[in-house]
């Protein structure tokens, strides 16, 4: 159960974004575009629809997954989900950011990305009960079911760390 995209899957991703009529509301709403003008989500969609290929160029990793574009898109195109797919393809090709395996390993072994956080102290300050920590086992299962574990293996097999 790897996450390697078959041509049909890629076609169905492109299919889902074809309704886009390039109004630019996603770019108008994108917090990343505001600070990084080289990352234009509208443009990204246009490229994919026009060329018919998904060619990750690294900018997909800047998406903050805030879902503002998806919420405002007048055509119901899910740009954020497209970018997740692009991130996956990027990973398959061994182009994930360097820190990614580290993060996933942390999640796999401990269930969280960062062990120490001020969150609990802050919650305490506001009289909120501490959050329940996810167990590593549960998280591992989620990652296995979503194919993230396989994807990570695939990524590492490409020997990214080697260069």
């Amino acid at each position, binding site marked *: 159960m790897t996450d390697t995209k078959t041509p049909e899957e890629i076609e169905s991703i492109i299919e889902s974004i074809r309704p886009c*009529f*390039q*109004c*630019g*509301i996603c*770019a*108008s*709403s994108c917090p990343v*575009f*505001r600070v990084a*003008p080289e990352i*234009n989500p*509208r*443009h990204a969609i246009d490229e994919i629809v026009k060329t018919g290929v998904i060619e990750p160029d690294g900018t997909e990793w800047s998406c903050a997954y805030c879902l503002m574009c998806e919420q*405002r898109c*007048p*055509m*119901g195109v899910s740009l954020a989900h497209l970018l997740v797919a692009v991130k996956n393809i990027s990973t398959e090709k061994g182009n994930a950011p360097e820190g990614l395996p580290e993060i996933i390993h942390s999640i796999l072994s401990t269930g969280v990305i960062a062990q120490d956080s001020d969150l609990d102290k802050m919650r305490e300050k506001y009289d909120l009960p501490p959050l329940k920590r996810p167990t590593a086992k549960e998280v591992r299962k989620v990652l296995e079911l979503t194919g993230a574990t396989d994807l990570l293996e695939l990524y590492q097999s490409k020997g990214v760390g080697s260069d």
Partner: protein
Amino acid sequence: MTVSRAPSSILFGIVNLYYSIVQFCQVQLVFGRGLASESECVSMTKSESNPESEVESTKREIHHAGEEVRIGVFPCRCGKNIGAVVDIDEVAEFSRDLPGVVFVQDNRYTCADPGQKEIQVAINEHSLNRVVVASCSPTMHEATFRKAVKAAGLNPYLCIMANIREHVSWVHQSEPELATLKAKELIAMAVSKAATLEAQPEQDVNVTQAAMVVGAGVAGMQAAYDLAEMGYLVYLIEKQPTIGGNMAILDKVFPQNDCSICILGPKMVDIYQHPNIRLYTMAELESVDGYVGNFHVKVKQRPRFVDTDKCTACNDCVEVCPIDVPDRTDQNLSWRKAISIPFPQAVPSAYYIDVDTCLGMDLIRCGKCIDKCEQEAIKPEDTEQVIEFDIGVIILATGFNPADPRKTPRLGWGRYPNVITTLEFERLINAAGPTEGQLVRPSDYQEPKSVSVVQCVGSRDISTRSGCSNYCCAESVKCALLVKEHYPDTDITIFYQDLRMHGKYFEDVYRKAREQGVKFVRGRVGEIQQFPDTQNLRLSVEDTTHNELIMQEAELVLLSMGAEGTAGELPIPISTTEDSFYIESHPKLAPVDTSTAGIFICGGAESPKDIRDSVIQASAAAGRASVILQKGRYPIEALSAKIMQDLCSRCGSCVERCPYGAISQDGTGKFTVVSALCRACGTCAGDCPKGAIYMPNFTDEQIFSQIDIALGDNPEEKIVAFACAFCSYRGSDLAGVSRMQYPTNARIIRAMCSGRFATKFAQKAFEQDAGAVLYSGCHLPADCHFQTGNHFMAKREPRIRKWMERHGIADDRFRVEWVSAGEGKKWQGIMTEMSKVVERHKEELASRKVAPPKKKPAKKKAPAAKKTTPKKKAATKTRKKAPQKAAVKKTRS
């Protein structure tokens, strides 16, 4: 409930004694509202009412079921269109031996004048009482041949066509032998149906010489005025206290930017003074009963508390009224009183009291206006009135509402005072508006130095309305020009997505705006934020032509509001689109007609449109309506369902299925069909558990016999394809016209609507070993020409599949498809795919040679299983659901 007087029954179906149901027709009840209205009954043509009289010497009406059937078959070569593929001589020879056929004559062009003459001569010389023309599609020439046989004295309904061009010669060009075989079988099917065809009386009903127009905006006014000018009495119903609609509150109207009320005002007065127009303001439809030509309407009029005849609009009452109410005309930007007039030019020119806010029309609670009014025009005793009248036609001009800006919260309307809608802008720039034409921003009453216009608010967005609202681009450019006209130094930017300046003279307006320095930026505004100190606004928008984010600061923002549909609020069953606009009968060829005869639509109720288009459409609707009024009588569909009372179990399922409210139940529990309302779609018959509904000329027996003949030879190779007359049959015709080749094994059976395709037809076909069965109708959800027939057909699919599963019939041998008249290619694809299924099925049969004889007894059981009572069926329903799903899954994987 209205009292129905002694049922005015007229003997209605003298000739149709096929089933000995007495056809006393009590015309009542319409639109499923349960209100009965006495009404005049269906009349008949002269010859029908006196069948025995030989007044029109040579004309004979042949319709006695008991009489010897004498069928004439006329195969046509259609030049080389049919003749080059189908061996017409062989077909003619074959036809001679078919039961009931007494005469066969082939022809080069049967539809041409000599060909028609030959049919007429043959009818007389050979005493033919049924005619089968084997030529092109009935959608092409059925009317032609019906007319021809009628001229020879035969009832037009006794003529039927076999489609051997679109369904044979054009789609099987390289297989002449198989094509000839198919042609023969199609003719045999037609002949078998012809034998039991029944003559139908050509009926018409009287038309009341009056019309009702609902909604007195610019469209309703125009429609009412046109009809009134033609001399018809028009009842004009308006919900608001004044007529004029949305146009009355606009300042200027594009493209010439003339003053709106200045051009509308005189028209409003014309309406008020017209002797043929009965105007009811503050009135709403309560109920509509009846049918084309004979509608009975109840209108509820809210009390105005002011006598419109006495009121001189002197304003004295307003001066003393202590209650302030937000002013609707001014878009709540100013106040009016509890007694008020919407605007100075209002028609009727009289005040009205807003009873919800008035303190009380007596001297104890307030009563100041009563005291002050010298004309004694105020009537505290005024009450709600119910007005009833009869009309022949209805025009719906209920308009649209401006979209609600609160549904787009990201743009800040309601939170930020300086974000206003274009309609609010219209009032601000209007000399009669709250600021007397001064454009100021609401937060500080200062003239804005910079204005931004945001396009497509409430339009082209799946979260509000996905459609374009048509008028807003021109509206925005007009607003920009108005700003420039009054305040030339204002910096004004329009943020548009696609500027649609499509109308006459619109391009000139656009050019003018550019020339005057209005800036246009292509990009949809993401969000608007307010600077807390200045209350200026910041728009974030991507300039899509330059791929860059713009953070535009503006002192005032106009939201260009689209339209919101209001259709569907009336007690009239006209289908509406998802966004609440009325659906026309045909988008191109009948754009102001509706699926209900005698009801027309125009203006904003049909779709968002500007004033010019509304007026054009209103005149069109008035013209279409007058066609019915002018003739005085209206022909109604001769075919209509009949309920066989001895079989009817009175379950009432037919009532739910009838989209026209044509089936009603009388006091004794008996269901009857009002033939004037019935359009003969057959959806009721398709689902009748007792088979108690009789569809003349599309009877169960006729369809069964067509299936029998279609499957006479090599049934396992055949596809029995049921196609609805309006979409799918035409789609199959288009495949023919486009010469799209497909295998020859399909036998197409036509019915009025897919709603007629009963479960038992597919069962019957499979019992006869059909290779595959297709049910094809108009596309879901809204394409059905009988409104909902396709939905009811779709509901039968799981039942049929369940039955197939029980009888070991492979799931893929049955298909339900939606094919429009434009989808010839799709039809070809379906036929080709199904032929492959049939091919596979044949191979399976061949591989287990012993199977066919074994199968027979299993099939014999089928009818028994079918006859389980509805109750039992319901009980098995839930149990069978799971395996059904599994079966579907299997085929998918």
